[in-house]
């Protein structure tokens, strides 16, 4: 396949960026999208240009590092991560636009690489169970109904890639935040910190400069792990419950 790529190039956080156009040839439909970018980069290095910077690591769709908006869609046209997107989703002669995640809470570091540390700070605000090493009771001491365990798992699948923020017209991080809150709040182990967790994490999310939710559903459509939109509803419910309880104290 022969393709035309239009890629966002930006030297560093302070520099202005622009789309640059490149041609790549000899692309096989079995390649992953990132392998196609590898080929572009080899080409650029040999021609004395700087290669396109992009985040990637496991290339198995689980680490959440890759973060490309491809033709206006976070992770591209398939419901997966960019690293698991294959070139068979494109046609010979296509022009493909590649841009970084766009959100003021995710500033661009270089080219297609953005700073997602805001997500880490949301987790630090309460996305954990306080269980210091060594203090754990026997694992079978507290049975967890299978339905709750499955609900927790479904939300725990979030890979923290940030596609939800990138896809949201408001740059909101509600889906990410709700996934972690729902995962921990449904489990008996997470119950003691149930209220503080949701209040603190939502407050941190707000202070990072993410937008608010208008329930457009773009986040859930873009999520490579299929975290459902209703996850946000569950978080809202948790938040209201916590706010009411906090008000009574």
């Amino acid at each position, binding site marked *: 396949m022969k393709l035309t790529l239009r890629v966002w190039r930006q030297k560093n956080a302070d520099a202005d960026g622009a789309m640059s156009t490149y041609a790549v040839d000899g692309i096989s439909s079995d390649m992953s999208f990132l392998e196609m970018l590898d080929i572009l980069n080899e080409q650029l290095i040999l021609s004395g240009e700087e290669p396109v910077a992009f985040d990637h690591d496991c290339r198995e769709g689980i680490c959440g590092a890759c973060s490309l908006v491809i033709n206006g869609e976070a992770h591209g046209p398939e419901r997966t991560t960019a690293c698991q997107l294959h070139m068979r989703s494109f046609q010979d002669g296509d022009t493909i*636009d590649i*841009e970084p995640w766009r959100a*003021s809470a995710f500033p661009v570091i270089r080219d297609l690489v953005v700073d997602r540390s805001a997500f880490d700070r949301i987790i630090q605000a309460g996305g954990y169970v306080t269980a210091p090493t060594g203090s754990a009771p026997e694992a079978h001491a507290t049975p967890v109904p299978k339905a709750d365990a499955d609900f927790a798992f479904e939300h725990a699948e979030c890979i923290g890639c940030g596609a939800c923020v990138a896809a949201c017209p408001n*740059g909101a991080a509600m889906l990410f935040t709700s996934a972690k809150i729902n995962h921990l709040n449904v489990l008996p182990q997470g119950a003691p910190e149930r209220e503080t967790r949701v209040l603190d994490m939502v407050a941190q999310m*707000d202070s990072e400069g993410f937008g608010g939710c208008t329930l457009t559903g773009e986040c859930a459509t873009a999520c490579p792990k299929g975290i459902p939109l*209703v996850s946000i*509803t569950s978080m809202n419910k948790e938040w209201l419950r916590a706010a009411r309880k906090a*008000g009574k104290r």
Partner: protein
Amino acid sequence: MARTVWDSTVGKKTVMAVSGVIMLMYLVAHVIGNLKIFFGPEEFNHYGHWLRTVGEPFMHYEWTLWLIRVVLAGAVVAHAVCAYQLSRRDIKARPSKYVHRKPQASYATRTMRWGGIILGLFIVWHVLDLTTGTVHSGGFQAGHPYQNVVDTFSTWYGNVIYIVAMLALGLHIRHGFWSAAQTLGVGSRARDRALKTIADVLALLLTAGFIAVPVGVMTGVVS
């Protein structure tokens, strides 16, 4: 609690949901009242008078009405202030657009902001037109709402403004009702279909009910 709510985007959304639900309940009552216009001036005017005497003798003349007006005004202001602040925040959170645009979510979702502004302006006009009579087209007669309504809908612009606003209202309710359910945490996967259906039905009935009046005037059923 109030501080927690007001400082949070989720809290502000809650304020919008609650105020929206209040306004929606009012609209349901409003549309039922409006439809009395098809039963002639006597019944309609009598209904208008009754509104001012509800709750007597416990309440004084118009007290109940004013109470409702105050609650409604509060809801409108809270709804609008939250919408404004959240929208400002949303726009700031996503300052640069993608070069490659893709088709966005449903029409109703996208039109929430513009629809809201249209509805806000409409409310001002509507009050000045039929409550205070300030911008009324004919000679506004307090206590004769039937005639006032007929006057309004005898002008082309009265009809246009009203019908456009009611269409906006339908779209606003369609997404707003479902959204409010999500914000208040009553949505779920099992209920999603039911909620969407209720939202559609509500939007349709309210829009149709309100638009029936100008259509009635235009077609001469009401005169």
